[in-house]
């Protein structure tokens, strides 16, 4: 699904990602974990095309297509979705309006017929069940006056409606109480299909107790430090990142 090779990314003069290699197969769920400042969010945003990052070298391909040369909206049309850590408020525009415009813009780019209001509403109602989104919230301004949990549920709802091939969820679990976390996790699980992949970016193991990943990668200081199965997430929880980093540096040292 996505193939990232030796990706080096800087903000201004400062190198943030120092050569990241990552591959997620179709239908797989991968988790990227790491301490604060390790480059997790940078990885998410550079893949989505946020302005302000400089790609120094390396490449990223989504289903064989070069991602890094595309505009953000082209990446969205190619099937990439980013669930934001801090979803943005857009006053005066209802959730439904944004979602309808977005869906129809994507459909047009893919040469599909735009949905009319009736078809669209039916679709949203169907998908809204995944995240138990009250209809009243859909009519409010985009994320306007939403609680942290509502904003994150809204991200999952958007994902459910836009049906991406690859969903990158940036710290979707942060700031959620236990119930909201479960609802979000159920939403993700409901959308797990053989044709859709996930990259879950998270600091804690909490979300991964509800959404079992196929692979876990530890990102540290701009590089993938180590990768493993779900047990790696549990090891992080028990030992902390420092322990892992030390072990890895010993490994690297011994190889050298």
């Amino acid at each position: 699904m996505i193939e990232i090779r030796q990706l080096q990314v800087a903000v201004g003069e400062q190198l943030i990602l120092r050569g990241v290699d990552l591959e997620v197969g179709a239908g797989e769920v991968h988790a990227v974990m790491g301490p604060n400042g390790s480059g997790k969010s940078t990885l998410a945003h550079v893949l989505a095309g946020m302005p302000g990052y400089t790609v120094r070298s390396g490449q990223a391909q989504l289903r064989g297509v070069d991602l890094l040369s595309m505009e953000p909206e082209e990446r969205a049309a190619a099937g990439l979705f980013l669930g934001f850590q801090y979803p943005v408020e857009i006053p005066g525009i209802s959730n439904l309006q944004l979602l309808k415009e977005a869906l129809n813009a994507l459909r047009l780019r893919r040469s599909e017929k735009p949905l009319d209001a009736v078809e669209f509403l039916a679709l949203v109602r169907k998908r809204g069940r995944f995240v138990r989104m009250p209809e009243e919230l859909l009519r409010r301004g985009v994320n306007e006056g939403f609680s942290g949990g509502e904003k994150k549920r809204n991200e999952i709802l958007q994902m459910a409606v836009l049906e991406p091939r690859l969903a990158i969820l940036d710290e979707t679990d942060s700031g959620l109480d236990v119930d909201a976390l479960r609802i979000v996790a159920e939403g993700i699980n409901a959308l797990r299909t053989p044709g859709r992949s996930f990259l879950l970016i998270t600091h804690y193991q909490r979300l991964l107790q509800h959404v079992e990943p196929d692979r876990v990668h530890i990102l540290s200081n701009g590089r993938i430090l180590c990768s493993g199965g779900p047990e790696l997430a549990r090891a992080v929880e028990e030992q902390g990142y420092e322990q892992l980093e030390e072990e890895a540096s010993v490994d690297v040292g011994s190889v050298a």
Partner: protein
Amino acid sequence: MAQQAEELENVLRKDYAAGFYTDIEADTAPPGLSEEIIRRISARKEEPEWLLEWRLRAYHGWLKMREPRWAALRYQPIDYQAISYYSAPRTREGPSSLDEVDPKLLETYEKLGIPLHEQKLLSGVAVDAVFDSVSVATTFKKTLAEAGVIFGSFSDAVREHPELVRRYLGTVVPPGDNFFAALNSAVFTDGSFCFVPAGVRCPMELSTYFRINASNTGQFERTLIVVEDGGWVSYLEGCTAPMRDENQLHAAVVELVALDDAEIKYSTVQNWYPGDANGVGGIYNFVTKRGECRGRRSRISWTQVETGSAITWKYPSCVLRGAGSSGKFYSIAVTRNYQQADTGTKMVHIGPDTTSTIISKGVSAGHGSNAYRGLVRMGPRARNARNYSCCDSLLMNKGCSAHTMPYVEVQHPSGCVEHEASTSRIAEDQLYYCRQRGLSEEEAVNLIVSGFCKQVIKELPMEFAVEARKLLAVTLEGALG
């Protein structure tokens, strides 16, 4: 439903375009303003003696006045002796075909979906075909007449209802009110007149689109709307299509009078030629619009979408004289390229328990300059008067500017004034969020701006609101630059 509205719209537009071409007279006066010219204007219109005297008093007042200089506007001095005031027999010295028209303008017409023959009318190209729309007009006139509503050109009203015109003309905007109002009072050529008698709810939205015989109102337009006790009217002025006009200076006057329990809703979409991308050409629009809530519990609201003109100087105001009356002002002003707008409102609370609301949204792009200037005054008898003002500015890029100048004067201890203001750059994170969801940059800008302006757009009559959104989108194309 939407399609029906659109078809109706088309019919109305054609009427309006046709109205432009009735009654074109061949004689032209030399440029310049003098008593002689004013006498000729009045004589040609066969006006009663009192109106001629009214014009002449305005003219002599104007001679002693100075052009106001306090607005945040910069423009070359206007030579008032270089203008031809003798009612506008439109010169046919305009472009001879669409090939000679600013291609940018044509592009805009295309985007707004304006038919070719109408494009020619709007851009001033001579055309032969004139639409016959008398039947539609007659139908409207009949419906209005049955309801007792008088609606037509100002000249017709002077002939047919001189007592009404005389009773109300200049009672809201006196001829000596300001420099441009005085000029208008001296030389106004035509405009609209509307009278809604007591207890009548006007059966349709009144639109200048079908002001069939009120053509050539152009440069110095005069509008007077009077609604008697308990009456209601909604009046739409303007057109979303950018209109080319050889007359650079426009100085209109609009007066509204609402008696006990009457309501007037006045909506404007102004999109006159703004000049080209380098700031060359474009209309100077110096307008005086004022409504008086003369009766108890009367209500007046102004809603405006201002996207055109090189210079906009305009402060639709409400004088809240009647106890418990209310005034509202909803405004969107967009400036780009080198456009300048100094616009806002005055809410003058005279009677007790009067309320006013001001919602102003300014959008600036390019080198555009956008100023909100507003006055809220509560006089010594305005017990329990209340005002709420909210002035927001959105900046699209670095070269543009926004200014907010609220003036507040409260002379009664119970007065309550709330003012909120904000200025923001269009947010990068909002654009990025929308683009990640699949919208192009332009679509994202449109969405964010339309959200920013929503409070005002929702005050417009429905078909107008649809057009206004389209107009905002077209106006702001490529505005991020």
